């Protein structure tokens, strides 16, 4: 068995700054007035997560807002470093936390494609190789030479998503981005993601759409207040989540 991602006892604490002292004035005042001193509070976004993702698996992450799904994704993507525990990631990871990461409104679609792919570590030649596919999938046609600021929301999303699904990473992390775009394009994206999966890409999907989770995923994880509450067959985990919601969890 080869693991794409292994998390062992991963916890993440954020420091919440009340009266944040990012400037010297506040620090100095704090020396004399304890009441104005920066107050630090620890907030544990994730607690003791043990999770291993098989290569080629599609894992769904569900849970209420603020349960730590996005934090978990960012830890897998090395954007955050865990406070405790160990993370092993094998292969190139492409996090898609937002569509159109790195897009600059004054640059054209073409220029933004090259900028965005290079953020994910692709060389110019690697981007050249997938450029036509990206443009074709995005259905932008001649608009590819127009500044992105003139795009409609739909066009923007199509381009951003098209880049993400053509990066061909070993591990693709997707956060909620499917909720955007029209119905037809959403279906197209789901098809494309299934295709990507068949080629052996490991997929990790955060979604509030239980339908997507049940359709796409081999396994699902339910996160509640930073803890792994349930894990296993997507249908069962989704059911468990629904039960929890119907009882009326205070977090929702």
């Amino acid at each position, binding site marked *: 068995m080869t693991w794409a991602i292994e998390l062992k006892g991963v916890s993440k604490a954020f420091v919440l700054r009340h009266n944040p002292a*990012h*400037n010297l004035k506040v620090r100095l005042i704090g020396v004399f007035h304890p009441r104005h001193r920066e107050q630090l509070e620890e907030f544990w976004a994730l607690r003791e997560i043990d999770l291993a993702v098989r290569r080629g698996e599609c894992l769904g992450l569900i849970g209420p807002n603020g349960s730590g799904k996005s934090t978990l994704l960012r830890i897998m993507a090395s954007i955050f470093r865990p406070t405790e525990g160990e993370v092993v990631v094998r292969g190139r*990871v492409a*996090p898609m936390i937002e569509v159109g*990461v790195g897009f*600059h409104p004054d*640059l054209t679609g073409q220029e933004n494609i090259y900028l965005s792919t290079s953020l994910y570590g692709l060389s110019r030649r690697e981007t050249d190789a997938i450029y036509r596919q990206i443009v074709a999938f995005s259905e932008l046609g001649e608009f590819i030479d127009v500044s992105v600021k003139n795009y409609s929301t739909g066009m923007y999303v199509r381009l951003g998503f098209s880049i993400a699904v053509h990066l061909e990473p070993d591990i693709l992390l997707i956060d909620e981005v499917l909720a955007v775009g029209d119905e037809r394009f959403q279906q197209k994206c789901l098809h494309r993601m299934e295709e990507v999966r068949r080629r052996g890409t490991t997929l990790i999907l955060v979604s509030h759409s239980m339908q997507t989770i049940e359709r796409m995923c081999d396994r699902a994880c339910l996160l509640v207040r930073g803890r792994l509450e349930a894990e296993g067959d997507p249908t069962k985990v989704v059911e468990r989540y629904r039960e929890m919601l119907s009882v009326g969890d205070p977090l929702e």
Partner: protein
Amino acid sequence: MATVIGELLGYRALIRNLVLKDLKLKYRDSVLGLVWSLLNPLLMLVVYTVAFKFILRIETENYAYFLLVGLLPWNFFSSSLVASTHAITGNANLIKKVYFPREALPIATVLFTFSQLVLALAVFLPALVLVSGVRLHWTAVLFVPLLLLHLLFTIGLAFILTTCTVFFRDVAHLTEVAVVLLFWMTPIIYPVTMAPAKLQLFFKLSPLAAFAIAYQDVLFWGRVPEELVASTLLGWTIAALLGGQVLFRRHSPTFAEEV
């Protein structure tokens, strides 16, 4: 250090695209385009020449050329430092969304300013050599390695400033004030020989002054910089680059949480 360089080489397309982005944004939709990049140094040259050559009467021949030799690299240095303070805090959206070696941001900022320096040099250096009729000595070839050394030194300082700005936003304002003060304390508009002997030694040990002195040596006076100046430059460049890189790497894993 070696791993950082290796990682950055893998992301060289990113650094290139970040610099290209800044260049495109600067020149697109502006009618005069490149001229704007030249106007600023041109005006500075004119004003300083009038003030120091004709009013204060500094007795240096070919004063405009002398001034240019130190002034253009200084402009690169100071605007790099000011811009680099925002390299991380100004790109929070990228840092929170995707992993890439964070060094790429300050490096791209400095390289963009460096491209402006190369442009200004390519226009003004030949022009002033022609107008003033100075004869370039063979030492002029040393200008290239000096520029590269200056580039590395500036990148090292950019690492330090951009890291400090993440934790203390004041550093950005402080830097803006500091570069103005440092300009007058650096022998750019006056030759170092005008300073009292004690101060001259200080100049030769300080990296900012040593760069100016070395530029004037190879391009204006036509001589190889003295050993003391050369070792100051080498020593400070290595210190800035190593120290900056270590500091940056120690803190860069937390940038996504702090910005």
